[in-house]
C-alpha cells in the first residue's frame, strides 16, 4: 500500500505552468517513484518500444549510415566511406535548394489551410443539422480512396480539356492550365491533397469537439454569449490538444508527401512541384542512388524536426500539451 503517495502534492501535468517550488517538489517525488514505476512502465512500454526501435529507428540508422557512403554504381565497385560528400553535393545543388523552398512553401500553406477548413467542417457537421451522417460519409470517402487513384481522378478532372475547365467556362471563366503551368501546378496539388486530407483531420477534430461538455456550452448560452464568443473563449481553448495534434501530424504528413507528385506532375513543370520526398523517391528507386537519397532524407528530417519543435514550443507556451 503506497500510503506515502497521499502526502505528496497532487501531480499535475508536467506542462502546466507552475512555480519553482512545486517543480522541485515534483522532481523529488519523481525520483522516489522512478524506481517502482519504472519497472511497470518498462512492461507497458516494451512492445511498442521494441516495435519502434526495430521497425523505425534501426532502419533509419541504417539509412543514415548509407548517407555517408558513396553510391553503388557498378558491380564490383563497392561502396566506400564518403564522409559528407553526399551532403555537400545536395547543399550545393540548386535543384535540392529548389525542392527545399518548394516543400516549405507547400507545407506552410497547406497545413494552416487544411486545419482551418477541417475545423470549420468539424464545427459545421457537429451542429444540429439534418442528415449529418450522410454529409460526414461524403467527407470520409476522399481519404478512403486508394492513394494511387485519387490523384488520377483529379488528374483527369483537371486536364486542361477536362470537366473542371468545362464547368469554369460554362460559368464564364477562362479555362485554366492547372498541372501544366508552373504557377498553377503547386496550388493544384494543394487542392488535391486538401480534398483528401480535410475529411481525415476533420475526424480528429470532431472527436475533440464532442468531448466538450454540454454544461459549458449551456452555461455560456445562459450567460448570453454569442457564437463567436463561445467559439473563441470556450471551444478553441478546449480544442487545443486535438488542434495541436492535427497541426503536428498534418505538417509531418505533408512534408513526407510524394505520391500525388509522382502521379501527376513528376516534379514539374519547371521544378515547381519538386518536393523533397519526391526527389528522394526518384533517387532511391528509379536511379538507384540510395546514398544521395538517404542524405536527402536526413536533411528533410532535420528541417522537419526544427519546424515541429517550433510548433511544440508555440503550443506549450500557451499552457497545454
Amino acid at each position, binding site marked *: 500500500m503506497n500510503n506515502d503517495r497521499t502526502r505528496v502534492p497532487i501531480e499535475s501535468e508536467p506542462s502546466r505552468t507552475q512555480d519553482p517550488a512545486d517543480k522541485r517538489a515534483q522532481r523529488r517525488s519523481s525520483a522516489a517513484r522512478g524506481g517502482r514505476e519504472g519497472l511497470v512502465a518498462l512492461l507497458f512500454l516494451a512492445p511498442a518500444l521494441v516495435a519502434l526501435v526495430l521497425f523505425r529507428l534501426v532502419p533509419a540508422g541504417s539509412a543514415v549510415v548509407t548517407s555517408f557512403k558513396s553510391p553503388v*554504381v557498378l558491380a564490383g565497385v563497392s561502396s566506400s566511406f564518403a564522409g559528407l560528400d553526399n551532403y555537400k553535393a545536395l547543399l550545393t545543388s540548386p535543384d535540392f535548394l529548389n525542392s527545399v523552398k518548394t516543400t516549405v512553401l507547400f507545407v506552410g500553406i497547406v497545413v494552416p489551410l487544411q486545419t482551418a477548413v477541417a475545423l470549420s467542417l468539424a464545427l459545421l457537421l457537429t451542429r444540429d443539422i439534418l442528415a449529418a451522417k450522410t454529409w460526414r460519409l461524403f467527407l470520409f470517402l476522399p481519404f478512403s480512396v486508394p492513394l494511387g487513384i485519387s490523384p488520377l481522378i483529379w488528374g483527369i478532372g483537371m486536364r486542361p480539356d477536362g470537366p473542371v475547365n468545362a464547368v469554369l467556362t460554362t460559368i464564364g471563366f477562362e479555362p485554366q492550365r492547372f498541372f501544366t503551368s508552373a504557377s498553377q501546378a503547386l496550388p493544384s496539388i494543394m487542392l488535391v491533397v486538401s480534398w483528401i486530407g480535410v475529411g481525415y483531420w476533420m475526424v480528429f477534430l470532431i472527436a475533440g469537439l464532442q468531448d466538450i461538455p454540454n454544461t459549458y456550452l449551456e452555461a455560456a448560452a445562459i450567460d448570453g454569449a454569442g457564437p463567436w464568443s463561445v467559439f473563441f473563449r470556450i471551444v478553441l481553448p478546449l480544442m487545443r490538444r486535438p488542434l495541436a495534434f492535427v497541426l503536428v501530424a498534418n505538417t509531418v504528413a505533408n512534408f513526407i508527401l510524394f505520391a500525388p507528385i509522382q502521379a501527376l506532375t513528376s516534379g514539374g513543370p519547371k521544378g515547381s512541384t519538386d518536393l523533397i520526398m519526391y526527389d528522394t523517391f526518384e533517387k532511391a528507386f528509379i536511379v538507384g542512388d540510395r546514398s544521395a537519397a538517404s542524405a536527402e532524407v536526413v536533411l528533410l528530417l532535420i528541417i522537419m524536426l526544427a519546424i515541429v519543435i517550433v510548433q511544440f514550443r508555440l503550443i506549450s507556451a500557451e499552457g497545454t500539451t
Partner: protein
Amino acid sequence: MSGNVNGMIRGPIRAKFSRRQFIARALSAGVLAGTGGSLLAACGGDQQGAASGEVKFIAAEEPVVFQPAIKRFEKSHPDISVAYNNYPFDQLNSVLQSRLQSKDSSFPCYAVDQPRVPGFAARGYLTDLSDQASSVKEKVLRSAFEASSYDGKLYSLPLWTSTQVLYYNTSLLEKAGVEPPSMDPDKRWTWDETVSAAKETQKAGAKWGLVFNQINRYYQLQVLPESLGGGSGLTGPDLLEPDVTNDAWVRAFEWYRSLFSDGLSPRGVPPEQTAALFADGELAMFVGLPSDPTLEEAKSKGQLDWGLGAHPYFGGGEPATPTDSWALGLNPFSDQQEAAREWLEYLTLEKEGALLGAQNVPVPPTQVEAFREWIREVSERPTEPKGWDELIKYELDNTAVHRPRSIGYVQFEEVMNTAFKDIANGADGGATLQRASDERDEALEPLRRALEQQG
C-alpha cells in the same frame, strides 16, 4: 488479374470477337492458374537441383499473357513449375532495381526493359548468357539480339519488339478533304505534311490534330532529333556524355513544343489516356503501336474507322521509328539458374513458347518463326488494312532506332522525360534542353568516374 475482359481481343487467333468465348477462356485460364497455384504450393521442393523446382518469374503483364505458355511448358517439363508474379507497369523497373540492388535471390528470372540491359548488366544484375550467344543469334531478329546485349556480351534473351505507325481518322480526314497518308514507306509523309494535314482537319471540326501515344516519353520522341541527324542525346565513348543541345535537338523540340502551343495536341494528357482521344473520334491523327488494343477494339465495335500510314519523318532527314520492348534476364543471385534458363529459352527461343507468350500482347515476338506467324495472323484481322505486315517488317528492318546502349540510360531517360514535359507545357526548347543537359551531366558523372576506375 485478368482485368479487361472486353479488351482482350489482342490474340491473333481470335478473328471475331465473342464475349462469351472470351469469358469462358478467361475463366478456364483462371481455373487452371488456380490449380497450377496449388500444385506450386505442393512442389516448393527441390530448389537447388539443376533444371527443376519452382521458378519465380517477374514481369509487368497480366497473368493471362503468360499462362498459356506456362501451362504448355510445365506439361513438357514436369519437374519445373513457373510461378508468375506481376507488378504494376509503372513500378516494375524500380522494384526490380531495388530488389536486385539488395541482392534478392528469391526470383531467378525477370523481364528487363531492353534499354536498361546495359545498366543492369554493369551493376551485376544480369547473368552473362554469352555461352548461348551464337545459337540465340540465329533464332531471333538481329536487332533484338543487339538490344539484349551490352559490351559485346549477351545478357538477356529478347522477348518482344515494337514499332510505331501513324493512325488517321478516316471521316475526319474526309471532312477536311485531306488525302490520307500512305502505308508505302517510300511515300511516307514528312512531319510538316502531317502537321498541315492535322491543321486542316481541325479547321474542319476535329478537336485535336496530332497526338503521340507515349507523350513526353523518350521512347516515342527520340526519333524526332534522330530523324534530323541529331543523335540519341548521349555521346562519348561510353555514351555517358549528354548531347541534347545541338541544332537538330533544339529544332526537333521547338517543333514538338509548337504541337501543343498551336493546339494540335492537348496538354496535360498522360500517355495512358491518349488512345482514348483517338478512339472517341476527337483526334485526327495518332502515332501509336501498330496493333493498339484500344483502337482495334474501337474499330471492331464500329465506333470509328481508321487507317494507317507510315511513321512520318523530318523532310531532308532520315526516317526513324521507335523500337524494342522487353527482354528476359536471369538473376545472378539466385541459385535456380538452370531451371529458369529452360523456362526463358522456351518463351523466347522456341516458336511455340514465343507465339503463346505473344498471343495477348499487341507487340510481336522476336523469335524469328514466331514473329512471321504472329505478323501473318494479326495482319489477317479485319481491322488491319492490307499491307500492314509489309509496313511493320520494313520499319523493323530499316528505320528502327534503338535507344542508346548506355549504363546511364535510366538517369538520362528520367531527366529527359521531365524536360519533354516542360517543353510540351510551354517551356523554351533550347533553355530546357540546356538545363537537362547540365543536370544530366551531373547525374552521369559518378558513372563516368566509376568506369574510369574500372579501367
